Structure formats: structure tokens, C-alpha cells
């Protein structure tokens, strides 16, 4: 009996976490300018209306550029750091690692104003997409590092010792052994960094200059009731794209982990 109760609960739970979000695509194909029941009929005109809106397309291109750059840079920094954390012993490791994980527990508004202060008041740099990207690298790094650390812990360090014993240089060991084995982790780190940066709003809102990223553009549209249908359509497209990326990242990472470590998460 209790088993059934929990199953019912699980179904309700899934409905709760997905329900509100699915409202957006539902109303985005509704033939009305309001997000209200009863539904008026199917239409794709809100999607068609998005095409050709230059500010939106500019914001999209900006976000794609920032997200791509940020995910590559954050992953490139996280790979050696993850190797250091999992394969080397050095003094002060807990403190260093806690420091690197700090962005996870600092409210993003504090990160945003702190970066704003140093950029504007101490360095005197103009706000631009570059300052947004810089902020995004900081918040992506702990996530990339976590994914890579758990991947590197997933396979036996003895393999690398064996490779060194058999005469491989550290670089050879890295490129021929560590890199391919960590591959799924690297790919999911890239995808995660991309998604986090692409979706991030608060830091972009504070640190951007005259140009918008997609979430900043979206936020500016949320205030106008007239642009609601377009916002719903745009939001639905973003949801579909980021869901696809997340599922891809998770599937790749899990497949990678499961193949050598059955039963592991």
C-alpha cells in the first residue's frame, strides 16, 4: 500500500516540477494575445513574429558567442585543476577547493555587484559583453570542476601510474589515456558551461553595457503585456534548446560513468 502512495506522489511531483514550465509552450501556440483559458485554437504566428526582430536576433548571437567562449575557457581551466585535485597531493587542498566552490554559495547579486565595483570603480573598464563573459567564467568554473572531478575519480588512477611506469611522458599519458577516458566528462563540462552561461541573467543584467544577452532581452520584454505572445514563443524555444542540451550532457556523462563503473551514479 505504502509503495503505491509513493508512486502516486512521484507522479504528482513530476507534474509539479514540469507543469508550470509547460504552460509557456502551451500558450505559445494559442491563437490569442493573452495567456488565458479557454484555449482559442492552434497557431504558429507568435513564432513567425519572432523572426526578423533585430534586437532579439542580436541578443541571441551575443548569448551564443558568450556561452561558447565561456564554456571552452571554463573547461580548459577546469581540466588541469580537476587533475590536480584528483591526482596530486598538495598542502591546503581543502581550502583551495572550498575557495573554488565559493561561487556556488554566494548569491549571484553579490557576485554581480562585486564584479561591477571592481570593473567600474577600481579598474575603470567599460561594461561590455566581455565583462559579462568574465563574470560567467567565474560562476561556470565550480560546475565544470565538479563534473570533471567526479569523472576523473570514476576511473582508476593506477592506469595512469602504469602508463608512466611503461615510459610515457606526463603529456603522453594525458593525451593518450586521461583525455580519452575523461572525454565524456569534458563534453558534459562544455555543455553545462554553455547552458549556465546561456541562461544566466543576474550577472549579465549588471555587467552588460549597451548590448543585451538573450535573458536580459527577455527580461526587458517581460514587463510589456503587448509582447507576451512573442515572449512565450521565445521562452518555449529557449526551453526546448536548453532541455535538449541538458539531456545530451547527462546522457553522455552517465554513459561514460556507467561503462566503467556499473552501479555508480
Amino acid at each position, binding site marked *: 500500500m505504502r509503495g503505491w502512495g509513493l508512486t502516486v506522489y512521484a507522479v504528482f511531483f513530476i507534474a509539479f516540477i514540469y507543469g508550470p514550465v509547460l504552460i509557456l509552450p502551451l500558450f505559445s501556440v494559442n491563437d490569442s494575445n493573452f*495567456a488565458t483559458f479557454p484555449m482559442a485554437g492552434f497557431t504558429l504566428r507568435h513564432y513567425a513574429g519572432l523572426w526578423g526582430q533585430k534586437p532579439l536576433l542580436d541578443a541571441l548571437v551575443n548569448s551564443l558567442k558568450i556561452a561558447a567562449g565561456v564554456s571552452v575557457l571554463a573547461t580548459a581551466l577546469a581540466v*588541469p585543476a580537476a587533475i590536480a585535485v584528483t591526482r596530486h597531493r598538495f598542502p591546503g587542498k581543502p581550502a583551495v577547493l572550498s575557495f573554488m566552490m565559493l561561487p556556488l554559495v554566494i548569491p549571484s547579486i*553579490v557576485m554581480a*555587484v562585486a564584479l561591477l565595483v571592481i570593473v567600474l570603480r577600481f579598474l575603470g573598464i567599460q561594461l561590455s559583453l566581455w565583462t559579462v563573459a568574465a563574470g560567467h567564467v567565474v560562476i561556470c568554473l565550480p560546475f565544470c570542476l565538479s563534473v570533471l572531478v567526479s569523472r576523473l575519480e570514476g576511473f582508476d588512477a593506477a592506469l595512469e601510474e602504469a602508463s608512466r611506469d611503461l615510459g610515457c611522458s606526463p603529456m603522453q599519458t594525458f593525451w593518450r589515456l586521461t583525455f580519452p577516458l575523461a572525454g565524456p566528462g569534458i563534453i558534459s563540462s562544455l555543455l553545462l558551461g554553455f547552458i549556465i552561461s546561456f541562461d544566466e541573467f543576474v550577472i549579465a543584467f549588471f555587467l552588460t553595457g549597451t548590448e543585451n544577452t538573450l535573458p536580459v532581452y527577455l527580461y526587458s520584454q517581460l514587463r510589456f503585456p503587448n509582447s507576451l505572445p512573442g515572449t512565450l514563443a521565445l521562452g518555449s524555444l529557449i526551453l526546448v534548446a*536548453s532541455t535538449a542540451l541538458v539531456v545530451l550532457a547527462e546522457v553522455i556523462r552517465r554513459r561514460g560513468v556507467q561503462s566503467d563503473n556499473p552501479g555508480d551514479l
Partner: protein
Amino acid sequence: MVEVADTAARAGLLGPRRGRDPGRRREALTGFGLLSPALLLMIAMLALPLAALIVLSFWTQSGFTLDRTPTLANYWRLIEPSDREIVWMGIHFHLAYPVPAILIIKSLVMSLTATVATILLAYPMAYFLAFRVKRNKAAWIILLTVPFWTSYLLRVFSWKVVLGFNGAINSGLMSLGIIDQPLDFLLYNPGAVMITLAHSWVSFIVLPIYVSLEKIDRTMLEAASDLGDSKWKRFRRITLPLSMPGTISAALLVFIPTVGDYVTPELVGGPGGTMIGSLVQQLFTKQNNAPMGAAVSIVMMLIIGSLVLIFLTLIGYWRMRARRAS
């Protein structure tokens, strides 16, 4: 994304345990070498900005002039007593500038409520996943993880569409003939903020709780049953205490960022649902008092930090109890 919670929680307990070897110094140097690019970036873009924020909080701003003489004036202003009395939620404030104090207390209460709601909602789900799901676990985990990674902004916005005056619930109930006037108490209040926060973070917290349940030694549960414990008693005496440390550390990862959340109160909070993040934003922009904004941010972080220490002590206590139980 359980490894995030995991790595954060057991920072430093990682890495292969090898015996002492003579190359240890070199190993440490290589370790630091590999770590240095990431570490330098974090120092430049996390530690220095936070230091700058602290420095700024000791300066003062009046109008457009920034006075760089170090002073505690901003901090004093936050606690400066006054004869004027302001009552908020039954609490009497005798402060000259009560807004930050009220908003900090309000943010802490709202965020704590949302965090508790998140745990209560997520725990049965995690329990189901750990003890009932036998096949397709990976699919369930992905299903639960995905919402957390889809745009935070959109998840918050969707609640605005659901709860709004002309929103899904109101129009739905009206077209069903259950109500004839839209309910105006759904959106723009602290309740809407807390529901939205709980919804946004619940998919983040299920996995860490699941992991702490999954780690429990099943033979212990069998032993309890064999020795005559009822299912409920077994849960209360073994499962709950053993899963408590993981649950609390997961709760911290929800509590800390939600106190300073900016998007949710802005979009669904209305005037009554403002939190401390909105004040920080206003001080830095409209009110043009960045030093005060810096002081408020730092006080907020200090308060969160001391609350986290209390939580962590609690975890230590639960761990000790769990060890005694096993």
C-alpha cells in the same frame, strides 16, 4: 547534478590516498602548477572583487561625491537607533533606517520557509527513487534533473503566467464557472515568492538527498526489521538520521543562494514580496549609494555565513548520532 553538492560538501576529502613517497614535494608543485590557471582566475575575479566590495563598504557616498575616508558610517547607519518606532510583523524596530534590517529578516524567513518546503517536497521523491525504483533509474534521474538546468528566468516567469490576474489559474477557474472574479491574492505577495523559490530549487535538492539515502547500508534496515522494528520505527531510527547530514547540506545549497535571490521577488513578489537582493540592486542603481549597497551585501553574507555555521554544527551532531546508531 549531485556531484556539485557532493564536491562542495566534502571538499578536500578527494584524491587517491597514496603512501608517503619521496617525490611528494614535486607532486605538490605539479599540483599547484596544474591548479594555478583556474586559481589565479578565481583570485582575480572572485577574491579581488569581494575585497573591493569590502573596501567600498567603508567609504561613503553623498550625492555624486564619493568620500574615500575609511569609516564605519554605513554599518552604523544599518543599526543606528532612533526614537521613531516602526512595527513590522509584530516586531518593533527603533531604527533610523529600518529598511535593510526588515528586508534581511524577511528574506531569511522567506528563504528558510522555501527551503523547508523544498526538503519536505523532495524527501519522499528521493525516498521513492532510492527504495522503490528498480529499473530505469537513470531515466528518472535525468527527468528530475532537467528542470533545474532550464532557464531560471523562464521558470520564474511561468509562475507569473500561472498565478497572474489574467493568468492560467484565474482564467481556468473562471471558464469552469468556479469563480466569477479573478482572485487577486495569488500573485505579487511573499507566498508567490516562496512557492516559486521552492519550485525552482526542488529539482536541485532531490538528487543529493537520494544519494544520502542510497548510501545507507540495506543490511542495517533488514536487521532492524528482523529485530522487530515496524516500518515507521525503522525509518525514524535508521533511515532518517543516516540521511540527515546529506539532506541538511543539500538544504544549505538551496538556502544560501535564495536569501539573495533577485529575479523571483522582482517578477512575482510585487511591493509586498521584495527581498534584500532588490534593495542591493536599488542602492547600486537608482539610489546611487553603492557604498551602502556594499555594506548591505556584506552584512547579508555575514549573517548567512553564521547561519551556515550553525547548520554545519547540526550536521556534525547528526553524523555523531548516526555513527552511534551504527
